[in-house]
């Protein structure tokens, strides 16, 4: 990557001085940071990254290759936010930094091509994403995948091989219910709108189905607006804040139109971004107020259930379960108890807490392809903690985490299945 780093970035997102100066460089976040834990270098720590933001902000140097490297190694897991007593809003600072990087550095042709594909084509147009997923499914079901794996065709191209290994086996895709509205079982007490997501319906369709059933069972009329789109979290995390804004505006319009009591999300990463539309659109007078209204309605499905409260399930699931805190649930949304409450309510399910359950598993989109060794190190540490808890089921609350944990299970050869919290509740409703 080559850099040309003008220090004045008019109009571009950048971490604000007020945010930067919240950091008192106490270091209390160090041991919360997965990249610091793995590498032991201050350059790969939250405090170090804030120091770099401050140096760039102060004009001591630009977004040099060195700075960009440290910023891109960040998982954006936001564990540092939870650890920080001073309230440094690291997540939004890193999003802004990534946007700064996008605005000022010239990436390689290949990187630009991939980014165009992902940010301009696939995610903004979910139809295309779906088509891509169909191709993948064809690859898996036609026997080509079997051949590729048997013959180790990809072995010479390590990163592609790794990517191939990571591919989840795509189940039946989620078909949104034929009608936009699934009525509550019995008397409806609430009317909720659900985000169906972009990755979730393709990779974990059953989770969406379970979510709809669970909500309906708990007295909700469940709407799944057809016109909704990707929430924009992938864009926001990758320095495409303007792309994220466009997606946010569309969802705000679509969802507010339905006038719901709550907007339900079962992917923690999406929920976090949607709760932060307020910040994203702060500078947009036309949408600022709408964004505030929208974000105030967003609930993670476990959070929503715990607030209700939900009907206790009756059917026994005899198994040991442990819970991996999804970073964007625990650190970005501050939700720790709700998913545990749901799990503990299930008869026969024995809940065991694993060590460091709120440390990132290393799932961060393409992170584990780009930074393979580091990501594998982080995952292996995670899986060691998982294995020590000896679970039959590993529960979590985000599709990205599910994918990563499934890969971990395969790597370690564990005999455990990965499930979304809401799937287990659905099973226990029988």
């Amino acid at each position: 990557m080559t850099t040309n780093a003008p220090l004045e970035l008019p109009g571009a997102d950048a971490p604000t001085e007020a945010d930067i100066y919240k950091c008192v460089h106490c270091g209390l976040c160090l041991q919360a940071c997965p990249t610091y834990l793995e590498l032991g270098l201050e350059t790969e720590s939250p405090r170090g990254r804030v120091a770099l933001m401050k140096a760039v902000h102060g004009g001591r140097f630009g977004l040099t290759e060195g700075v960009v490297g440290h910023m891109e190694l960040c998982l954006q897991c936001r564990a540092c936010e939870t650890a920080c007593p001073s309230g440094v809003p690291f997540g939004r600072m890193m999003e802004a930094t990534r946007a700064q990087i996008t605005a000022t550095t010239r990436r390689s042709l290949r990187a630009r091509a991939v980014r165009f594909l992902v940010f301009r084509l696939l995610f903004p147009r979910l139809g295309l994403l779906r088509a891509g997923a169909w191709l993948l499914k064809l690859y898996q079901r036609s026997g080509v995948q079997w051949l590729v794996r048997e013959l180790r065709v990809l072995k010479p191209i390590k990163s592609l091989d790794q990517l191939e290994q990571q591919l989840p086996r795509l189940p039946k895709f989620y078909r949104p219910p034929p009608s936009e509205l699934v009525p509550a079982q019995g008397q409806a007490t609430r009317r909720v709108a659900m985000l169906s997501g972009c990755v979730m319906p393709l990779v974990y369709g059953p989770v969406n189905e379970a979510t709809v059933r669970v909500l309906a069972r708990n007295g909700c009329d469940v709407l799944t607006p057809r016109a909704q789109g990707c929430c924009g979290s992938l864009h926001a995390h990758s320095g495409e804040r303007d792309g994220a804004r466009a997606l946010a505006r569309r969802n705000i319009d679509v969802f507010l139109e339905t006038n719901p009591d709550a907007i339900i999300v079962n992917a923690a990463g999406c929920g976090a971004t949607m709760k932060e539309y307020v910040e994203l659109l702060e500078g947009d007078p036309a949408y600022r107020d709408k964004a505030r209204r929208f974000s105030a309605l967003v609930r993670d499905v476990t959070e929503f259930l715990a607030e209700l409260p939900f009907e206790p399930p009756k059917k026994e699931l005899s198994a040991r379960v442990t819970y991996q805190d999804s970073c964007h649930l625990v650190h970005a949304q501050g939700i720790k108890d709700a998913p545990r409450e749901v799990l503990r309510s299930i008869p026969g399910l024995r809940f065991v807490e694993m060590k460091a359950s709120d440390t990132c598993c290393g799932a961060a989109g393409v992170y584990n392809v780009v930074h393979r060794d580091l990501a594998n190190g982080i995952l292996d540490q995670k899986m060691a903690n998982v294995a020590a808890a000896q679970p039959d089921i590993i529960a979590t609350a985000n599709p990205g985490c599910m994918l990563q944990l499934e890969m971990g299970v395969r790597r370690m050869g564990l005999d455990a299945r990965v499930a979304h919290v809401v799937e287990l509740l659905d099973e226990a409703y029988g």
Partner: protein
Amino acid sequence: MATKTKRTSLIGALEGIVGAEFVLHTPEDMVVFEYDGSIGKSLPQVVVFPSTTEQVAQIVRLAYSVDVPIVPRGAGTGLSGGAVAVKGGIVVTLTRMNRILEIDPVNRQATVEPGVINLHLSEQAEPHGLYYVPDPSSQRVCTIGGNVAENSGGPHCLAYGVTTNHVLGLEVVLPDGEVVWLGGPLEDMPGYDLTGLFVGSEGTLGIVTKAIVKLYPIAESVRTLVAVYEEIDDASRAVSAIIASGVIPAALEMIDKVTIEAVVQAVDVEYPSDAGAVLLIEVDGLKEAVEQESEAVEAICRDLGAREIRVAETPEDRERLWAARKGALAALGRLAPNYYILDGVVPRSRLMDVLRRVGEICDRYDFRVANVFHAGDGNLHPNILFDERIPGQSERVLEAGAEIMQVCVEVGGTITGEHGVGLEKKGFMSLVFSPQDIAAMEKVRDAFSSVETFNPCKIFSTAKGCGEGWRVPTLPDLGPGSFL
């Protein structure tokens, strides 16, 4: 050009010792090593991460032979600038040496490398029913090496003593690269007590590469309570009264009104925002004794006007109370972009008086001050809140600090309890010691380190080219060419 060549070959030599991966030297990377937890800043030229004693020794010998400053560093949470490379040079970061080599439950001791995180040691000792006592508020992140160097304390040092009471022996690389053992696994080793000398030497006498430390049995029972006061004076009186009564609580901490304002924003803890101060008190020991003692403490607190006393009902409650205490300092970042933390010690009988004068001084300078401290030890931590971006504030905050130090010494106290002298308090050494006293200390330092390049300019203000006291340096510009 000459320096450039010297620097390049120095980097090459360091890479030869630890591997290129563990030598950092770009301007961007140096910026994240210019600070610690204090207000001092200065850029090193190269940072190296050894993983064995032998590598440390080689690095130290190299620095010695080419006459380049060298500064040991742990997690960089120090509050007196000890790990700041004031004269540039090599920073040796010990965080990779983080193995717990042995836990010996029979003799209740552990042998650890210097980069072991304080809390990790207690976590590893827990299955044996043991823990490592000194618990600085930074214990989640700071290293045993840094603790040894600063002779760190913590809330639970009131009853059981600070770091020096818990270190038995040290493997040390001396400033000339020699590796020696000071002390050893037994309590009373013959000869000079060099371990005692080394603990608290602030990284000026050598680099700790192994430490043998004591572990204590986890108390059978513990009770944590919070006493809420309208006025900080009443809380101060209660502190004196508790200690005078003969009860020695495991911890006795004071949190004042300004600190409460910050803490309640950071941690989910119910401190009443209109309180003048709260005392966080912990009693531990055998079950019956704990009951008796906590009743006695509660009675004293009430007699002296506590408007409310809350007892932690569950381990989670207790954890929250401590999280609030341990996050208190950094939580002050919510009130102002910078704080200057002081570390004076005063006789407990003078607490009330000194706190009042601290308040007056800060009023006069127009600074807000937040007090959160180990009241039971009389170890004050006035934190003066300021904003380095406002011209003149960085200088004035040091002046206000100097006046506070004066007050502490005047009432028979001293200038640091647990954070060390480091950079910004060395100007105050003469308040406490005569020139002869200081000369005696310097003789000791010279016996270990005849070189002026070993963690230079710390503790004493007499060394050449270091200057009196400590000013906040204006940051060097890092344009091309100006680096080194």
